[in-house]
């Protein structure tokens, strides 16, 4: 430290914006998300793990079902959604687990920021990692199973399902962050809640691959959208309560 440069450090007034409403809230959401993404670009420990696991799982499923299943389109919807759920857990538990392991969470909680802003920042980075996973998985599914999933309705369903998964997963990751067995607690809590998303996602994908009319599948899209809205609102309200006094 330098004595000379200390003088004047406290003499200059430091201006802070107070209040600021939604704009300030969104600025902090962005700051948390950008910090996580920047750290991930350096450390490469979350998204890369998810993507490698996802791609390996596609290959393993491809080899496993190649010999026995008469039509690969029959199993692809299930494979897609199972891999997204399982690979996603790898990243979700790190979103807060890394803050706990490196003892940086108190630094976040010391700042004048609503816990929900931290939650939504983490949600944004988790969402990005899950979309990257899917972006890498779809071409491999096409190659391994000869099944084209690039249909607008499938992609919309995948977007809505992934959003709901990231919402609930980030919430449970926050809830279990301080528990000793968070790696095992997270899937135990998360997967049962994800059953509606899984069912809707698989049914929607299978319906499109089977050539059924889109009009008959909109109920699955509605289920996914309603799930997203409910958990978006619930997380916003509950996260502030569960983090009180951490």
């Amino acid at each position, binding site marked *: *430290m*330098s*004595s000379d*440069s*200390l*003088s*004047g*450090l*406290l*003499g*200059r*007034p*430091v*201006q*802070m*914006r*107070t209040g*600021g409403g939604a704009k*300030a809230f969104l*600025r*902090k959401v962005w*700051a948390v998300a950008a*910090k996580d993404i*920047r*750290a991930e670009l*350096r*450390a490469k420990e979350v998204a890369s793990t998810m993507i490698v696991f996802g791609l390996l799982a596609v290959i393993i499923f491809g080899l496993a079902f190649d010999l026995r299943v008469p039509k690969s389109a029959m199993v692809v919807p299930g494979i897609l959604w199972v891999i997204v759920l399982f690979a996603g857990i790898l990243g979700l538990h790190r979103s807060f687990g890394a803050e706990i392991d*490196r*003892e*940086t969470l*108190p*630094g*976040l*909680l*010391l*700042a*004048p*920021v*609503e816990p929900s802003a931290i939650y939504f920042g983490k949600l944004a980075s988790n969402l990005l990692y899950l979309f990257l996973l899917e972006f890498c998985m779809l071409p491999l599914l096409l190659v391994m199973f000869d099944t084209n999933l690039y249909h607008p309705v499938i992609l919309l369903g995948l977007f809505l399902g992934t959003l709901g998964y990231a919402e609930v997963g980030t919430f449970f990751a926050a809830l279990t962050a301080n528990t000793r067995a968070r790696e095992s607690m997270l899937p135990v809590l998360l997967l049962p809640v994800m059953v509606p998303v899984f069912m809707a996602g698989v049914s929607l994908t299978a319906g499109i691959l089977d050539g059924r009319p889109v009009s008959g599948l909109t109920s699955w899209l509605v289920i996914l959208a309603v799930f997203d809205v409910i958990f978006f609102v619930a997380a916003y309200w509950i996260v502030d309560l569960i983090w*009180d*006094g*951490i």
Partner: protein
Amino acid sequence: MASGNGSTGEPIVRVEKVAQRYGRKVVLRSVSLEVKAGEVAALLGANGAGKTTLLRILSGLDAPERGQVWLGNVPLTNAGHEIRRYVGLVSHRPLVYESLNGLENLHFFAQMYDLVEPEARIEAVLTAMDLWHRRYDPVRTYSRGMIQRLAIGRAILHDPPVLLLDEPDTGLDQESVAVLTDLIAQLREGGRAVLVTTHNWDRAERWADKIFYLADGSIEDGAEALRQR
């Protein structure tokens, strides 16, 4: 002991009969203390005496089981997150991100504290902490002393009126400790209230206007403890 000339009459930190326990272990029984603006108070005590617990309560990271903490005229309990602008904490842990560099760390915290045009402030803090020349290096490449200096920089970045320093001299070389002493003196001059924990009696005497001694979960007379040392 240091002579405080930035001190004003009203206590800015007031702790009233705070008690805390973890499970069945009582850490704080009934702790009361006050620190005025422009005053430096040292908190001494053996390992496990409850110094860190008290600082966590004062920073709002933990809620006390009983008692009340006031920052100015505002009770900390249920004060909302905005009160955290008024406190800076140097913890046992640096609370900075190893994969980011020093500049990115302070930029991130400047955003979290809503600093207006933070670049000049960040440069001033990094320069004062002698880290400006290493600003683009990842924190994981810093020495322990450099990480501690960055932690101090993070705590003073938003220039809080209350500064809580939990063993801030940990990992610092003699030269850096001398500058830390200078910083604490300037914080006093600038009217900030500083509560610092340390195991080092000599430093406590040099830094502080008054000394609290924490033993068995209660505050004892620091001067008396000093005489019996």
